[in-house]
C-alpha cells in the first residue's frame, strides 16, 4: 500500500536536530523532502559530530542519521537567480519547515506572509528555541540549554547530584514530534479550507509539555519542588518505593511500581513492615536502602527470574552489547542499511511506526550538498 504522505513535497530550510528530524519523519511516511542548503558547506549540522565521527565528505555520522531519505537543493538565497528558483519551488510545495532565528526568512522574502502569497495553500512550519516574542526570543535554541532553563534537570538522579541533564537531545526530539503533529494537523486543516496554515512550536514549550504531569502536580500541590530520593538509583522523583534501579551481586535490576508487601516477602524482608502504603512514599529512602541491601545477595538475572515468576514488574539493566545481542532486539527488526555514495553501507535505525502491518524502510543515504539540483530543476521546470 502507498505510504501515507506519498506525493507530498516538503522543503526543509532547517539545521541541527529538531527541524531535520521532523523532515526525516515526513520522509519516512512517504513525503519527498528537499533540504534547501547553502552551496558548498550546506547546513551547519553536517559539521556537528559526536565522538568526532564523520562518515564521508557529506557530513558527520549524526548528520547522516538524521538526514537519510532526503534530497538536497543548493541555493544561495542572496543570489537573485537562486532565490527565484526557490520561490518557484515554494509554489509547488505543500510544506515549508524552517528554524531560523526571527528576521532571517523575512530578509529573503520567505517569511509566512510572503510564502503564502506565493502559495495560498502552503503549510508553513516554524521551530524556534523559545517562541517569537519575549525576552528569550533571541537566545540560542539548544537542547541542553533548554533542559537547563525548563527545570527538567531536577528530575533525574538523586538529591546530592545537583542538576542532572537527560543524556540525549530529548527536547529536540520531542519538539520534532510536535512539529510533525502540527504539520499533519495543518495539512488536514488545509484540506478543508484550501488556505495556508502557520504551525509554530518551540523547544521550550516542548520541554514544558514533556513535564506536563509533574508541572500539573506542582501547580496543584502548593508549589513544591521535585524531591529526588537521596538514594542512588531512584527512578522518579514523584514515585514511591520500590521504583528504581538496584545493584545486585552481578549487574543491576530495575523495579517498577509494585506491591511492596509482596516484593518484601520475595526478597526476604518482613512483609508485615510494609503494609502501610503511605510509607512507601514518605519513607522512600529507607525502603530503597532496605531492598537494595537484599538485592546485593544474588545476581540480577536470578532476581529477575524469581520476581517475574511472581508477576512483579522488573527488568535486568542492559548495556548496548546485551540489548543489541538479545532476541527481543533482533525481533524488533529496527535496523536498516543505507547505501552511501562512496559504495559503502551504513547501519542505522528505521522509523518506529508500522503502517498497515509494514515497517517503513528507506535505504537512501543523506545527500551531498546540492546533489539533487539537476533533477529538481528538471522535475519542477526550474530554469538553471
Amino acid at each position, binding site marked *: 500500500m502507498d505510504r501515507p504522505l506519498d506525493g507530498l513535497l516538503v522543503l526543509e530550510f532547517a539545521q541541527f536536530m529538531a527541524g531535520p528530524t521532523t523532515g526525516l519523519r515526513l520522509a519516512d511516511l512517504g513525503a519527498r523532502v528537499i533540504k534547501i542548503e547553502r552551496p558548498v558547506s550546506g547546513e551547519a549540522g553536517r559539521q556537528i559530530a559526536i565522538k568526532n565521527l564523520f562518515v564521508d565528505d557529506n557530513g558527520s555520522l549524526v548528520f547522516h542519521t538524521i538526514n537519510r531519505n532526503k534530497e538536497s537543493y543548493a541555493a544561495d538565497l542572496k543570489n537573485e537567480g537562486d532565490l527565484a528558483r526557490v520561490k518557484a519551488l515554494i509554489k509547488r510545495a505543500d510544506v515549508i519547515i524552517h528554524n531560523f532565528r526571527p528576521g532571517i526568512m523575512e530578509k529573503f522574502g520567505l517569511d509566512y506572509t510572503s510564502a503564502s502569497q506565493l502559495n495560498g495553500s502552503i503549510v508553513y512550519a516554524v521551530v524556534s528555541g523559545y517562541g517569537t516574542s519575549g525576552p528569550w526570543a533571541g537566545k540560542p535554541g539548544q537542547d541542553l540549554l533548554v533542559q537547563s532553563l525548563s527545570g527538567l534537570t531536577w528530575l533525574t538522579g538523586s538529591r546530592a547530584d545537583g542538576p542532572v541533564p537527560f543524556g540525549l537531545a*530529548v527536547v529536540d526530539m520531542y519538539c520534532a514530534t510536535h512539529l510533525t503533529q502540527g504539520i499533519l494537523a495543518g495539512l*488536514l486543516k488545509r484540506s478543508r479550507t484550501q488556505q495556508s496554515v502557520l504551525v509554530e512550536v518551540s523547544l521550550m514549550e516542548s520541554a514544558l509539555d514533556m513535564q506536563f504531569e509533574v508541572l500539573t502536580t506542582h501547580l496543584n500541590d502548593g508549589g513544591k519542588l521535585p524531591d529526588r530520593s537521596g538514594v542512588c538509583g531512584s527512578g522518579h522523583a514523584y514515585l514511591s518505593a520500590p521504583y528504581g534501579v538496584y545493584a545486585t551481586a552481578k549487574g543491576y535490576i530495575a523495579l517498577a511500581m509494585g506491591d511492596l508487601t509482596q516484593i518484601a516477602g520475595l526478597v526476604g524482608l518482613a512483609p508485615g513492615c510494609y503494609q502501610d502504603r503511605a510509607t512507601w512514599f514518605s519513607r522512600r529512602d529507607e525502603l530503597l536502602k532496605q531492598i537494595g541491601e537484599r538485592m546485593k545477595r544474588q545476581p540480577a538475572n536470578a532476581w529477575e527470574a524469581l520476581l517475574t515468576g511472581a508477576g512483579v514488574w522488573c527488568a*535486568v539493566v542492559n548495556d548496548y552489547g546485551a540489548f543489541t545481542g538479545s532476541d*527481543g532486539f533482533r525481533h*524488533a527488526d529496527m535496523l536498516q542499511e543505507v547505501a552511501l555514495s562512496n559504495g559503502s553501507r551504513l547501519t542505522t535505525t528505521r522509523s518506529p511506526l508500522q503502517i498497515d502491518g509494514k515497517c517503513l524502510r528507506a535505504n537512501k543515504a543523506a545527500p551531498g550538498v546540492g546533489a539533487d539540483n539537476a533533477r529538481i530543476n528538471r522535475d519542477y521546470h526550474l530554469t538553471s
Partner: protein
Amino acid sequence: MLPLSGYLVVDFSQFLSGPLASLRLADLGARVIKVERPGSGDICRHLYASDTLLNGMSTVFHAINRNKESVALDIKNEADRKVITKLIERADVVIHNFRPGVMERLGYSYERVRQLNPRVLYGEISGYGTSGPWKDKPGQDLLLQAMSGLMWLSGNADAGPVPMGLSIVDMFAGANLCYGLLACLYRRSRTHAGAHVQVSMLETAIDIQFETITTYYKDGGCEPLRTASNSAHAYLGAPYGIYRTEDGYLALAMASIPQLARLLECPALADYREPAEAFEKRDEIKVILAGHLRGRPTRHWLSILETADIWCADVLDWHRLLAHDGFKALDMFQQVAMGDGFTYPTTRCPIRIDGEVLKAVRGAPALGEHNQRIMEELYG
C-alpha cells in the same frame, strides 16, 4: 476552526502512552471518548504521583485526560458491547494499548473493527510488538529504559545506571502514535482508505536512541562512556555539561575550548588547542573548567559568555522558571473546569496553529460522566 474538529476518537487505552496520543488529538480539535471499565476506570485515575490528589483523582490523570469525555462500558457485557460497536461504527480513530491478543479475544481486532467501519484508523501501542520473545512482558517505562541501554547515557561515569526521571518512553510512544494516526488521516482525506497504525515502546526506545545506536554500530560496538564529572551527553566533548558556580549552576553547550580559555580568563584551558582534544581530553578539561567556574556567580559568567554568543544558560528550578518573564511570555498554562465545577491549572498544548495558542476549557471527566449524553446521541 481547530484542525481536527468533527473527528471522533474512541479511546480504549489507559495509563500514559495511548491517552497521551488522544490528548494531543483532543487539543487539535477532535472529540475524544474514553471507554472505561465501570467501577474502576482507567487505572491511572488512582495511580498517584507523589501523594497529591486532586478532586479525588491523581494529578497525573488530570494532566493526561483533560478535554475528553468518559463513557463507562463493560467490554465483556453483551448490552454494553452493542454500544461499543455503535461507537466504533461512528469513529474516525480507535486507540488501544492492551497487551497483545487482548483486543482480539474481546472481538475488536483490527480486522473485525475494519468490518464494522472500513474507513477507521486503528491505532495501537504495545510494549514489545505483537509477536516475538518479549511480547508478553509488561510494557512499563522504567523497564524499557532498563532493557534498551538508555540508563547508561545520563549522569556521571561512576553513577551506575541512571534512569531519566520522566516516563520518557511512554511519552515518545504516544507522540509517535499520534503523528502516525495524523499521517493516515491525511491519506484518508485523499483516498478514503482506513489504516492500521502500530508502534511499540521497544521500537520507540530504539528510535529515541537513533543517534547513539547508529554510533554504536559505526564505531565497532563501543559502549557509551559518560564523563567522570559534569556529564550531560556521553558522546559529546567538553565543555558540554552543567557546572557549579559560586551561587548556582551554569549550562554550557558546544563551544571552542581556546575561545573559552580567553573569555573566561582561564589560562589552564589554553593548552587544549586541537579541536579533537575537546572530545579526547574532555574529562581533564571539565575538571579545569569546573574548578574555574566555581569562583564567580552564574550572572558573571553569563554576562561574559552571552556577549560573545557562546551557547550557555542559567539552570532554573520551577520557582525561578515560573517567575521569569521569558516563561510568562509563552503563556503555557491554562485553567480547565470539570463537569462538577472543580477547576484546576495545567499545561496547554505545545503547538500553535495560525498564531493562536490552543487552550482547552474542559478538565478531565469523571468516570462515566458522559454515558447518558452518548446513549442519547446513539439511540436518540
